[in-house]
């Protein structure tokens, strides 16, 4: 499973990231423990970034938010695929219905117009 591979990387990196070091040295099953921590952090993140938005037009920005949340939590890079894989444990994204709200926004066609601020001098 790819998820396991990622954790090996993480452990390998632990020498460089002090925050990771205690975890890998203290536990007898570092991989499983890391997986649980990842999942916990993901679930935390999902309180901010609701999963249903991963179906609609905002999904890339939501995914970006999730990537950033995990990056801050574990002090390492997370790829979009990795985040999606973690998500897959909890949500079947394929089964989720698309964003109804989005359909509503997109039904209200408006002509484009420039805001007043375009005509104003730059502040900075």
């Amino acid at each position, binding site marked *: 499973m790819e998820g396991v591979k990622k954790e090996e990387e993480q452990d390998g990196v632990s020498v460089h990231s002090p925050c990771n070091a205690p975890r890998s040295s203290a536990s007898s099953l570092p991989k499983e423990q890391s997986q649980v921590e990842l999942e916990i952090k993901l679930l935390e993140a999902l309180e901010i970034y609701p999963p249903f938005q991963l179906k609609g037009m905002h999904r890339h*920005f939501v995914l970006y938010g999730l990537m950033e949340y995990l990056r801050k939590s574990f002090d390492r890079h997370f790829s979009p695929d990795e985040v999606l894989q973690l998500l897959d444990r909890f949500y079947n994204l394929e089964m989720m219905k698309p964003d109804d*709200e989005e359909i*509503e926004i*997109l039904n209200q066609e408006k002509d484009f117009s420039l805001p007043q601020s375009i*005509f104003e001098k730059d502040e900075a």
Partner: protein
Amino acid sequence: MGSSNTGAKDDSATTSDGGNSSGEDLPASNSATYSDGEKVLAYHGPRIYEAKIQKTEFTKKEWRYFVHYLGWNKNWDEWVGTHRLMKYTEENIMKQQALEKKQGTDKSSKSGRTNQAKPKTSTDGKVEKEELKNYVSKGKKRKIDSIVEDNVSTGKVVKILIPSTLKKQLIEDFEFVNQQDKLVKLPRSPSIDDILAKYHEYRLKKDTMTADSVGEILKGLRCYFDKALPVLLLYKKERQQYQEFVVDNISPSAIYGAEHLLRLFVKLPELLAYVNIEEDTLVHLQQKLLDFLKYLHKNQNAFFLSDYDGSKGHEGSSRGKDD
């Protein structure tokens, strides 16, 4: 349950609950229509739900009530005004049922009591999935509402600072189309897809670490553009051209270019208001978007047209130069 009110009015009236006799929906200066712990009916979106008053507050000359929707997760508890509430009476329950019928939902609501098919337990991930499906089909609108409200009220709206040369570009763009009766000649080269790809390459060379983040943001921009173009980004005079060029399954981002991409940036704060992004992440995002705009500015001559096509006909199909 439910006290019957005499008279034609079926909104809150002089009944025992709450203990105030203000009558109409308009509360008297200092007396609340509803009280803590009272079970009420509350409007949310197109429907009416059973709710319970958790807190009351008098601010800015009006009463506000913090309600919990019975049977729904407490994350959805919210402050509402008096106008959103009704007394829990038979008449109002019938209103609720009438609305449900109108919505044509699959909820069964024979009695006036429980009408939410949603399971109450939400402790583990698996049940969450079920809840989500309910949420997605019925209550999702309210979650979006609170996301947008939150962002707007806390000022957590992404600020897109458009460089002044690009502002000028937008003004010219406006003038070409609306005052000079010209159109951008389609299809554009480079297209938006091309420009986004070029930028990605450029960032990759500078800094491989953030490649994934940048990649996701660019995908997000493309996705927004494809969805938003016909809805938010066209001037009236451009609609016909759009109909002619964006046919079958063609993505607008393959046809249009920098001129229209730039308009997306004007609308971006509005679109992103629907996403709840953490503050520090929002700052990062802003920086990345600004970097992209600077890239557009740097390559302005290569990416933007200096003049548009004025050879289109007046009415009917454009008789300009076709490819």
